[in-house]
C-alpha cells in the first residue's frame, strides 16, 4: 500500500509539474512544494512504521538488582493530585527504592506530605532552568543506580519497576520510556491520548534506536546521565534534548509499548494550546539551533528521526494551512493552479488521496488517525507561534509554564477567542463558496472541485473548533476501568466514508457530462439569485484578463446581465425614475443597408438629444441596420417624441412606433 501510494504520489507530482499554471507560479508552485512535502511526510511515516518493535508486557527477567530513586518534580500542582501520585509511588512493589518530591515552589504542605509518606524532599533556592534544573538539583544529591521520573499527576502502577528493571541488564541501555496513558475528557475531543504517537511512531522510532524520552514515566540510568552532566538544561523541557545527547554518545534506548502509569491531559483549549506550544517550541528549537544533522555521534536514521520531530511541526504550521487557503483563493480570484481539465486532476489526484488515506489507515490500525490529523492540522496557529518563539530563542530559553490540567481553571477565558484563526478560515471558506456562486462566470466543474476541497478543509478545522467550544467532562472512574473493544467497523468507518466519498467524486467528475453540469448549475444559480432578489448580478468577477498573454492589467468592469424576461421586467419597473431609458416603446426612425450611414443618423439623433441606438435586422434575406429611438413608457409618449424628431427635421417619417422585443433590448449597443 505504501509503495502504491508513493508511486501514485510521484506520478501525480510529475503530472502536476507538466500542467502547472506558471502565470500564478507564486501560489501554484508553492502548492506543488506543499504536495511534495506531504508525500515526503507520508513516506517517512510509512517507513518509520515499517518495523514496529513490540515488547513483552512482562518485560525482561530481572538478572541484576539496582537501587532506584523516584523523582516527582512539582511546580505548584494541587496537593490532592500530588498526594495520589506519591501514595502510588510509595506503594511501588520494589524494596530498594526511595521516593523524592522535588518542590520548585517551596510549599510547606508538600514537605508535610513528604514526611507523612516517608519521602525525600528537595526545595532548591534558585529556580533556574525550570524542570531540568529541578531534576538536576536532586540528581546531584541522590545516589540510586536508576531514576524513575514521574509527573505530579502521573500515577504509577506498583509493578512498574519490576517490569522495567530487566532492561537495564544490558549495559548500553540509558533509559526506558513507557507508553503514556492519559486520563482524557469524555470522547477525547482534543486527541490528547496521542495514540498515534505512542502506538505507532514511538515503536517505529524504537526500532531505529531513537525512541525519545517524554520526560515522565521514564526510567534513566544514572551512569548515563552523569556522562552528559545530568539532565540537559539547554531546552525548556529536558526530555528530548537529553535523549539526543545520550543517543549521540552511543547509548541505547528502549520504548516499552505498554502503559504503566496514568496521567492527566489538559481539558480546555488554552491548556491544549499551551502544552502543544511547549512541545512544538522545544522540538523546533532543536531543529533550528541544535540541528541533529550536525551531531556527529548520531546514526543517520537517528538524525532523520530527530529532524522529523521538529519538521512535522513546521509542516503543520506552514504547509497545511496552505492546503486550506488554496481552494479559497482560487474561488475568490478565479486563478487556478493547473492548466488541465478538472477530470484529469481528479483522475490523478484522487487515487493518490485514496491510497494515502488507506495507507495511513492500515499503518495506524487499529488506531483511527483522523482525529489526530484534525488536531495536528487544526493547531496550526499554535505551531506558528511556537516557530516564532523557537526562532527568537537561539541562546536563551523561552519562559516555562506548567501545563494546566484541571477543567475550569482557564474557563475564564473565552474559547472562541482561542480558535479565531481557525474560525476565520472556516468563515472565509464559506464566503468564498457563496461569492463565487453569486459572481458566476466560472467553469462549474472547477467550482465543484474547489467546493469539495473547501468542505474537506472545513471538516478538518471543525475538529478542534468544536472541541474548543464544547464543555467537557471527565469520565467516571468506572468508565476508566472498563475496557472497550470497538468493532472493526467503528474503527474504520471514517476511513471507509472517506474512500467511498472519494470514489464517488472521481466517478462524478469523469463520467458526468460537464456541459450538463454547466447548464444545470448556471440555471440553478439564476433561480437562486432571483429567489433572493439579487437583480442583475455582475456576470464577471472583478479580476480580469490572462496575465500570461501580453495584455494590460485587468480593470474593474461590471457587466449587466439580463438573464430572464421576468427579472428584466421587474428591473424595468424598479428603475422608472431614471426616465425614458427603461420603457418598453420605441420609435423606428430609419433603416439603412450600410453601417456608416446608420451611424451618421444615429449620431445626428443623439446630438439632438434623442436616445437613439442602432440594431441589425434581416428583412427578406437582406441585411439592414435599423435606427431606433427609445425607450418610452407609453405609446403616446413615443408619438410626441416622434413629432419632435419631425420638427427638428432629422426625418420626416413615417415613424413606426412599436413595443420593443426582449431580444432587441438585450442586443442594443451604444446609446
Amino acid at each position, binding site marked *: 500500500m505504501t509503495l502504491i501510494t508513493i508511486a501514485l504520489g510521484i506520478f501525480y507530482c510529475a503530472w502536476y509539474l507538466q500542467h502547472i499554471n506558471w502565470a500564478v507560479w507564486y501560489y501554484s508552485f508553492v502548492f506543488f512544494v506543499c504536495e511534495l512535502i506531504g508525500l515526503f511526510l507520508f513516506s517517512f511515516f510509512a517507513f518509520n512504521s515499517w518495523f514496529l518493535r513490540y515488547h513483552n508486557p512482562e518485560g525482561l527477567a530481572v538478572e541484576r538488582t539496582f537501587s532506584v530513586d523516584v523523582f516527582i518534580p512539582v511546580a505548584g500542582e494541587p496537593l490532592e493530585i500530588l498526594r495520589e501520585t506519591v501514595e502510588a509511588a510509595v506503594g511501588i512493589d520494589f524494596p530498594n527504592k526511595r521516593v523524592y518530591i522535588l518542590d520548585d515552589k517551596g510549599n510547606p504542605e508538600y514537605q508535610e506530605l513528604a514526611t507523612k509518606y516517608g519521602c525525600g524532599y528537595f526545595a532548591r533556592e534558585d529556580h533556574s532552568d525550570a524542570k531540568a534544573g529541578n531534576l538536576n538539583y536532586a540528581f546531584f544529591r541522590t545516589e540510586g543506580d536508576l531514576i524513575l521520573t514521574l509527573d505530579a499527576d502521573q500515577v504509577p502502577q506498583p509493578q512498574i519497576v519490576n517490569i522495567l528493571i530487566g532492561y537495564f541488564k544490558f549495559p548500553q541501555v540509558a533509559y526506558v520510556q513507557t507508553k503514556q496513558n492519559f486520563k482524557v475528557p469524555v470522547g477525547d475531543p482534543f486527541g490528547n491520548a496521542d495514540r498515534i504517537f505512542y502506538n505507532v511512531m514511538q515503536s517505529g522510532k524504537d526500532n531505529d534506536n531513537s525512541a525519545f524520552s517524554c520526560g515522565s514515566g521514564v526510567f534513566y540510568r544514572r551512569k548515563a546521565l552523569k556522562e552528559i552532566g545530568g539532565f540537559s538544561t539547554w531546552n525548556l523541557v529536558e526530555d528530548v534534548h537529553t535523549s539526543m545527547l545520550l543517543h549521540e554518545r552511543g547509548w541505547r534506548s528502549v520504548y516499552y509499548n505498554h502503559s504503566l502509569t496514568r496521567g492527566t491531559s489538559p481539558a480546555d483549549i488554552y491548556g491544549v494550546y499551551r502544552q502543544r506550544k511547549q512541545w512544538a517550541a522545544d522540538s523546533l528549537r532543536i531543529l533550528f539551533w541544535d540541528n541533529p544533522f550536525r551531531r556527529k555521534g548520531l546514526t543517520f536514521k537517528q538524525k532523520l528521526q530527530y529532524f522529523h520531530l521538529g519538521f512535522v511541526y513546521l509542516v503543520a504550521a506552514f504547509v497545511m494551512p496552505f492546503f486550506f487557503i488554496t481552494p479559497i483563493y482560487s474561488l475568490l480570484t478565479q486563478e487556478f493552479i493547473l492548466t*488541465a481539465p478538472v477530470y*484529469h486532476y481528479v483522475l490523478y489526484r484522487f487515487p493518490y488521496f485514496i491510497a494515502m488515506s488507506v495507507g495511513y489507515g492500515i499503518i495506524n490500525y487499529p488506531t483511527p488517525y483522523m482525529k489526530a490529523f484534525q488536531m495536528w492540522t487544526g493547531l496550526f496557529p499554535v505551531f506558528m507561534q511556537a516557530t516564532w518563539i523557537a526562532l527568537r530563542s537561539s541562546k536563551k530559553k523561552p519562559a516555562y509554564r506548567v501545563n494546566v490540567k484541571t477543567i475550569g481553571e482557564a474557563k475564564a477565558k473565552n474559547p472562541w477567542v482561542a480558535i479565531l484563526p481557525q474560525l476565520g478560515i472556516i468563515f472565509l471558506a464559506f464566503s468564498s463558496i457563496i461569492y463565487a456562486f453569486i459572481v458566476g462566470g466560472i467553469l462549474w466543474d472547477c467550482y465543484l472541485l474547489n467546493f469539495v476541497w473547501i468542505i474537506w478543509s472545513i471538516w478538518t478545522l471543525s475538529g478542534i473548533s468544536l472541541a474548543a467550544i464544547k464543555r467537557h467532562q471527565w469520565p467516571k472512574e468506572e468508565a476508566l476501568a472498563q475496557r472497550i473493544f470497538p468493532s472493526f467497523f467503528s474503527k474504520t468507518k471514517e476511513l471507509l466514508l472517506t474512500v467511498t466519498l472519494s470514489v464517488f467524486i472521481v466517478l462524478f467528475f469523469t463520467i458526468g457530462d460537464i456541459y450538463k453540469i454547466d447548464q444545470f448549475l448556471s440555471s440553478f444559480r439564476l433561480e437562486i439569485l432571483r429567489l433572493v432578489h439579487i437583480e442583475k448580478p455582475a456576470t464577471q468577477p472583478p479580476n480580469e*484578463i*490572462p496575465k500570461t498573454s501580453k495584455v494590460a492589467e485587468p480593470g474593474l468592469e461590471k457587466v449587466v446581465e439580463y438573464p430572464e424576461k421576468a427579472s428584466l421586467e421587474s428591473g424595468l419597473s424598479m428603475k422608472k425614475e431614471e426616465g425614458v431609458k427603461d420603457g418598453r416603446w420605441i420609435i423606428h426612425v430609419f433603416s439603412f443597408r450600410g*453601417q456608416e450611414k446608420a451611424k451618421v443618423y444615429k449620431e445626428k439623433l443623439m446630438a439632438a438629444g434623442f436616445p437613439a441606438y442602432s440594431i441589425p435586422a434581416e428583412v427578406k434575406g437582406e441585411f439592414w441596420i435599423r435606427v431606433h429611438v427609445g425607450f418610452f413608457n407609453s405609446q403616446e409618449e413615443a408619438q410626441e417624441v416622434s413629432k419632435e424628431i419631425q420638427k427638428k427635421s432629422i426625418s420626416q417619417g413615417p415613424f413606426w412606433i412599436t413595443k420593443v422585443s426582449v431580444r432587441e433590448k438585450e442586443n442594443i449597443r451604444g446609446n
Partner: protein
Amino acid sequence: MEIKGTELRVGLYLADDFYEAPRKAWRYNQFFGKRIQILSFYIPWGRGNQSPDLAGIQEVLKSGFIPMITWEPWYCVQELPEGIRPEDQPKFSLSEILRGKYDDYIWQWAVDLKEISTPIFFRPMHEMNGNWYPWGGKVNGNRPEDYVEAWAYIRSIFRKAGNDKLIWVWSPYVHSSPDEPGNEIWRYFPGTQEVDWLGLDGYNWGETQEWSRWQSFQEVFEKGYGHLTQLAPEKPFMIGEVGCAEEGGDKSEWIEEAFGLLRGNFFQIKALVWFNIKKECDWRIESSKKSFISFRRNWSLC
C-alpha cells in the same frame, strides 16, 4: 458523422501543437468562465506528417476539445525555398492529386484516422477561392472543376478505407480572389453529399493594409453567408477562421456586433473558430483589454 448540441461552439487557433494547445486553451476556459470547444490545427502534406499524430489528437480530445484539422496539400511557406511563390507548386496541383500521386498518403491518413472514435472536424483545402494556396482554383494550373473533383476524389479514398468518422468542413474565403466571373464561390461547392459542414473564413483587416478598410462583422460575412446558405440551407455552418484588427475602429464593438448577429441573423452559424494569433496583424481576442472583456461578456450572453 454528427456532433451533438445546439449552442454556439467557440474555438481557437493558437499556433501550438496538439499537446501545448489544450493547456493554453484551458487557461482561456478559466478566463472566460466558459468552455472553448474547438481547437484548430493546420497540417501541411509537405515534409513529414506521413501519418496523423494520433496520440496528439487523442490528447486534445481527452482534454475536452474537438480538434479541427485543416489539411493542406502543399509545402507550407517555411518549407519552401526562397523566391518561390507559395501558390506556385506544380507538384501539388489539383491534377497531380487526381492523377493519383498522393493516393498512398491519403490512404495512410484515412486508415490511421479510423482509430479516432469520436468525430473531429476535418477541413481539407480551405480558402480554395483565393489565389494564395496551390489548391486555389485560379492558380497553379488548376480550374474550379478540378477542385470539386479533387475533393470528391480524396473523400472517396476515405470512404474506401471505411473512414466515416470525420466531419468534412468545406470552407471558402468570404470573397473570391480574383473576384471575377468563373471564380464564384458556388463553383467550388463539392455537393451536399460530399460536405458535412459549411464554413467561411473572413477577417476584418481594419486599416492595417493599404487595400483594407474597417469592415463590420456583418460586412465581412453577409455575402458569403448568403451564398453558402443558398447552396446548402440544411447544413450546419461554422466560421472556420475569423479575426479582427485593432486599427481603424473599435474592436470591442466589432465583437459585440458579431455575437449579436450570431444570436440573431446569422442563426445558422453553430461554431466560430477565432484565429487567435498575431500574424499579419494582432488578430487575437486579447489584443486589448477592452476587446477581451467584450468577448467574454458577449459570449457569456450567448
